[in-house]
């Protein structure tokens, strides 16, 4: 696998991941700092399936099963964490989900079956870049259509004003739990694709830092914007790589430049590049 190929692959996986977090954070307005935990849960669960329990079926069928396993495992995690935690708001939910992400990572580190801290090796190469982008495409379509249906509108209204949303007949808890569970599940799908393209999993990829990076992708693109998420994922996968080429000092300091850019973005455009809008050629009167 070439370098560009590798990066393009990551772009695809991060598009799916960013969309999944956008459902929770951008659409529903719930703040999650443990998204890498769902990603990791899906990745490890699907890899466990294809390494230890794979059925004697053709590779694409097994990949579909692996994706389903990743989705279900992560969605169950989302449900387990969502039922108690979604009663919390804002900062509290952020910290609770952060804690959950850490618990997932620590559990992986302590599971010998999946390689513990050494990492999970020899995962079969079931997926490729076409899989990754086909899934990203389907998920993006899903998000677009969700946004334009009654369910999507209900979820978005929660972000805008919980009390008014409830007053419109939106069941707050169910809608929140729905977006949290499905968002987690989609992150699990991204995890399954990640596991079966990289063929190697390491607990360090599912730590807090990566949760933050995914969140920043969502925020950069604009919370609630599907096209924004895609652009956010593309930019934030490519820019840190591009900084490698900026030459001596910059390359050395790229990890300090990234947070500075982030802070500047927050100061200049806290709603992200696109806000909740979609990129479109149709004109919209904005009063």
């Amino acid at each position: 696998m070439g370098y560009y190929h590798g990066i393009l692959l990551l772009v695809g996986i991060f598009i799916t991941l960013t969309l999944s977090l956008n459902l929770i954070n951008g659409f529903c307005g719930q703040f999650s700092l443990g998204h890498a935990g769902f990603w990791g849960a899906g990745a490890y669960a699907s890899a466990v399936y294809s390494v230890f329990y794979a059925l004697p079926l053709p590779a694409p069928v097994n990949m579909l099963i692996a994706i389903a396993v990743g989705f279900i495992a992560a969605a169950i995690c989302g449900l387990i964490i969502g039922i108690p935690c979604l009663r919390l708001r804002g900062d509290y939910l952020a910290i609770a989900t952060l804690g959950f992400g850490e618990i997932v990572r620590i559990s992986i580190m302590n599971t010998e079956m999946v390689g513990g801290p050494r990492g999970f090796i020899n995962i079969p190469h079931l997926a490729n870049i076409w899989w990754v982008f086909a899934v990203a495409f389907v998920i993006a379509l899903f998000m677009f259509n969700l946004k334009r249906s009654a369910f999507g509108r209900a979820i978005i209204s929660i972000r805008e004003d919980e009390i008014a949303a409830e007053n419109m007949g939106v069941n707050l808890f169910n809608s929140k739990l729905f977006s949290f569970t499905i968002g987690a599940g989609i992150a699990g799908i991204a995890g399954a694709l990640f596991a079966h393209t990289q063929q190697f999993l390491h607990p360090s990829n599912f730590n807090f830092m990566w949760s933050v990076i995914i969140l920043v992708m969502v925020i950069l693109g604009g919370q609630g914007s599907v096209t924004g998420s895609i652009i956010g994922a593309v930019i934030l996968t490519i820019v840190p790589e591009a900084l490698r080429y900026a030459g001596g000092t910059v390359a050395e300091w790229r990890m300090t430049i990234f947070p500075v850019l982030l802070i500047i973005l927050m100061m200049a455009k806290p709603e992200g590049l696109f806000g909740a809008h979609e990129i479109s050629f149709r004109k919209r009167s904005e009063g």
Partner: protein
Amino acid sequence: MSQNFIYFLWDCLQYFINGIAQGSLYAMVALGYTMVYGIIRLVNFAHGEFLMIGAMCGFYALRAHLPMPAAILVAMLSSGIIAIAVERLVYRPIRKSGRIPALITAIGTSLFFQYFGQLVFGADPKTIPPFIDEKIYNLGEINVSNVQIAIFCITLFVLLFLFWLTHYTKVGKAMRAVSFNLPAAELMGINTNKIISFTFFLGAALAGLGGMLMGYTMSVEPMMGMNLGTKAFVAAVVGGIGIIPGAALGGFIIGIAENLVAGLYKSSFRDAVSFFILILILLVKPSGILGKNMKEKV
């Protein structure tokens, strides 16, 4: 009773004591967290990094042959000054943009200092000697060190000091006013920006102090702030965020629980236990043990 069971009881007692000592340190860091949250409702993710910078500066002060008390002072001042600078340059401009941008900014600041620290101070862990000569007292099966006792006493002293400050001084009363209602405090003629800066300074100085006291068990390295910071935040939330005695209580609870789990079960679950407690407390009483319930006005 079998010998093993007696050992078990002794062990529990020992872990409990160790937990109080460790909890004292968490409490010290949590105090800063809680004060800042109380005053501007910001989860200051960079608080752990203030601690790291303070401890680093203290380390270099010691290396320059300053005596320990002077080094502690250096640590507290440098933490405090960095905190004021961060508040001025980063948090203040973002304050009006809403909570999520503020939280992201805080995370960005935290990451910045971590990587900045790795490049400037080097990634290798540095050791700070204990601030007093360590002596260990054996009481039966229990060991208590004078450092542990001293840390506990210092934390108690800090708590009393903060109580006095917030209740009996002008600046402390102003702090309480700002935390109760910022715009109203402003209308009453309180210079809120000054009070916020002061709160950051005070909180960070305590973190710097905590960083220096930690020398007895931990080494100082640029990434230390993240873990410590989140634990202190957890402690603050568990106790009831924004409430000073709550932070201390939370610190002790987390410290004790961690030591019990690490001692009796597996130390690799040490970090998981604090989050577990957090989730548990938030379920039972979202405002924390000492917190008051608040409902949004409709």
